[in-house]
């Protein structure tokens, strides 16, 4: 393995990320620290904690997404139950994206070739990208552990939280490194890494709410979760996480040694000599379709999984205490509705991510100069942008529909109850206006300036933070209202209300129109 020059490349990479990386570390540390600081006020007595924790553990929707509270008496376990494995997954996502950004994305743009022609070893570019991921994971882990301990929680548990997060980051640094070797395009590599992440997350979710507990052990995120901070602190599980990361990085290095610079593992196939695409919207469809197809399959499978879990919330209905709790919630049906509603809420956040990623294609078209090929043919700016935006809005609605169909089909197949399909689909579709608002923000930012497009992700992250963690962080309640998702009637758990949906559609339309208007008036970025 030839890694000469790694340090120089690493310095350059860290310089490029001197704002981005510290900002991310800060977001993770701030969320963890404020949760740690808020918990004592929210649950002052042991009695409060036990009843809160038992309520969580009796709610399959929460357990599926965040994992159970492993020690119902522990202050730390309750403070962090939402942040353990979910946080590890987010750190993993960040690390995988960082590695791809500094390896495959640079390679695709031809920068790596420039660097590789210097006195730099064959493996140095990938190695430096991996080190960026490792540094990110360790920084988040160390700072999180330190600030939580400073907030007054038990030190060993705080270190365990740091281990869970850093471990998730390290494992997916490896996944990102492998994904970056497989495809010639960075976008496809990101898709592979995110798919692995989602599968790993789903495996542990299924393990938590069904009888298939073994599934947690085939997922790196399962290992991270099983560290169980504040409830045993099983530090030994860091070993498989690190081994997984080392093996993955080694595999990535081996794959890289077998391929040419700039190519993926699969050789490009020739295309047709004559084209059928003949319009701007046709081109947009062509550019979006592969990703959309992947997402369609993904959300359908997730929907099927959620739908089949509804009636199989295995171990949950066994203990008398849980049964009692479920009774108090209004019976089995209500619990199932809450489960579907929560999962749909998460699907809607993910589909918001799809929408932003689809809209970011416009930025890629502009900064690569490809946009000028199209705009100098008599295609108007508004027509071009509207093509991408409308396609994105329709695709977001389509993915939401497919999620609902997936849930409903599995649900109905299990209950033998036809109407479940219809009600699950309706429950899914009410989320569409909120997703459109997120997309509208993306469209507005792109219209105002191509460089601003990246900030639309901050908006989605803010929706997750205020919507999911606002309570545990003890944020003022108005902050939740900033997120469009919090205005959606949470069908099927809550009744249908048309007014908020109309408002969301109006806001989305205004944002989109603003984006189109601004785009008509600004300079194109230099090609």
């Amino acid at each position: 393995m030839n890694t000469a020059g790694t340090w120089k490349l690493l310095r350059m990479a860290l310089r490029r990320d001197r704002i981005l990386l510290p900002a991310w570390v800060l977001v993770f540390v701030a969320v963890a620290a404020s949760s740690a600081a808020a918990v004592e006020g929210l649950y002052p007595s042991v009695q409060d904690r036990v009843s809160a924790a038992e309520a969580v553990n009796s709610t399959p929707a929460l357990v599926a997404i965040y994992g159970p509270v492993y020690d119902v008496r522990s202050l730390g376990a309750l403070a962090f139950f939402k942040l353990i494995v979910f946080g590890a997954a987010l750190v993993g996502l960040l690390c995988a994206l960082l590695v791809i950004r500094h390896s495959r994305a640079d390679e695709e743009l031809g920068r790596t070739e420039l660097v590789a022609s210097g006195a730099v070893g064959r493996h140095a570019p990938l190695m430096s990208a991996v080190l960026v991921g490792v540094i990110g994971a360790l920084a988040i882990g160390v700072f999180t552990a330190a600030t939580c301990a400073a907030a007054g929680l038990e030190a060993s548990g705080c270190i365990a939280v740091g281990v869970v997060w850093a471990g998730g980051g390290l494992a997916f640094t490896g996944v990102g490194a492998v994904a970056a070797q497989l495809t010639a395009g960075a976008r496809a590599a990101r898709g592979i890494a995110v798919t692995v992440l989602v599968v790993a997350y789903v495996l542990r979710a299924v393990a938590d709410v069904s009888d298939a507990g073994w599934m947690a052990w085939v997922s790196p995120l399962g290992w991270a979760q099983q560290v169980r901070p504040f409830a045993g602190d099983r530090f030994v599980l860091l070993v498989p996480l690190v081994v997984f990361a080392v093996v993955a990085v080694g595999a990535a290095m081996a794959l890289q040694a077998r391929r040419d610079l700039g190519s993926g593992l699969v050789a490009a196939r020739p295309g047709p000599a004559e084209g059928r695409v003949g319009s701007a919207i046709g081109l947009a469809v062509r550019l979006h379709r592969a990703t959309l197809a992947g997402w369609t399959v993904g959300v359908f499978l997730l929907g099927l999984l959620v739908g089949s879990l509804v009636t199989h919330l295995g171990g949950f209905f066994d203990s008398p205490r849980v049964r009692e709790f479920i009774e108090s919630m209004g019976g089995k049906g209500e619990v199932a509705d809450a489960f579907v509603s929560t999962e749909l809420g998460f699907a809607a956040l993910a589909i918001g991510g799809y929408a932003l990623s689809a809209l970011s294609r416009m930025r890629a078209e502009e900064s690569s100069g490809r946009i000028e090929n199209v705009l100098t043919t008599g295609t108007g700016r508004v027509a071009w942008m509207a093509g991408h935006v409308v396609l994105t809005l329709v695709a977001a609605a389509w993915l939401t529909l497919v999620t609902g169909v997936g849930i409903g089909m599995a649900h109905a197949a299990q209950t033998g109850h036809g109407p479940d399909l219809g009600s699950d689909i309706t429950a899914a579709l009410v989320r569409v206006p909120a997703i459109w608002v997120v997309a509208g923000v993306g469209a507005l930012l792109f219209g105002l300036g191509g460089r601003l497009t990246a900030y639309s992700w901050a908006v989605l992250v803010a929706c997750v933070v205020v919507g999911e963690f606002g309570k545990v962080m003890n944020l003022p309640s108005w902050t939740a209202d900033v997120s469009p998702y919090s205005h959606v009637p949470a069908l099927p758990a809550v009744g249908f209300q048309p007014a908020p949906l109309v408002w969301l559609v109006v806001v989305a339309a205004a944002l989109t129109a603003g984006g189109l208007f601004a785009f008509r008036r600004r300079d194109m970025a230099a090609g």
Partner: protein
Amino acid sequence: MTAVIEVSGLVKDFGSFRALDGLDLEVQQGEVHGFLGPNGAGKSTTIRILLGMLRGTSGSVRLLGGDPWRDATTLHKRLAYVPGDVNLWPQLSGGEVIDLLGRLRGGVDERRRDELVQRFGLDLTKKGRAYSKGNRQKVVLVAALASDVELLVLDEPTSGLDPLMAEVFREVVDEERDSGRSVLLSSHVLAEVEALCDRVSIIRDGRNVETGSLAELRHLTDTSVDATLRGEVPPLDGLPGVHGVHVEGRRVQLQVATAHLGDLLTRLGAAGIETLVSQPPTLEQLFLQHYDQPEDVRPEPAVGP
């Protein structure tokens, strides 16, 4: 003759950096107009303003009788553009790109397309990612040349082509001119400019330094003369346009402004000429004279196109 491009007093600022500083440019209908200047002079910025991608800070721009910013969509139906740095969609084949761009312009002339593909020796089935720079350029060239438009805007179109393909390009542009199309050709290949262009504009630091036919430009530069006379060399220093006089016995070497060549020859002829070598300025000298940095060298901007 009407002008297809009329630019006057065009200014474009990027933040505090002034990319264009009162530029003038006029392209007549049916001519091939060379657009020259050192790197960073503002050629691509001018072209991108002409295409409505950027909006000029001040000054007036007319393209095919319209305003390139306001009437972009309608004007673009009547022109075709080849950027200097061609980027193609990685997942689309060359054939797909040519057909897409052609249809967006309102239709592809299949026969013309096939003819151009053959002449440029282009493999249409490769995907965008797999093409070399020259081949990417050929894809967009074929798309532009196969469309039925009045004006071709070509920004360094041959910078990646091999000499054989550059020759094909010249032939094709010649044919385009013969069929009455106007061409704005930005290029650094002097032989190409000499072979193709009716008139040229040379710009530097966002301003014109020279416009005219090559013959006119030659006229403005010096011819070097090396003569051996029958008799004594007459005093020449007083003659207009003459400088760098070097006398060695009956032999004289000097530089003369081409416009004053006649006067010089009359004077030398009176003394009786034995041998005479007169060398018109090469294109290279002509351009280097204009490209050369002036006294007040402006620093390269750190940012900007």
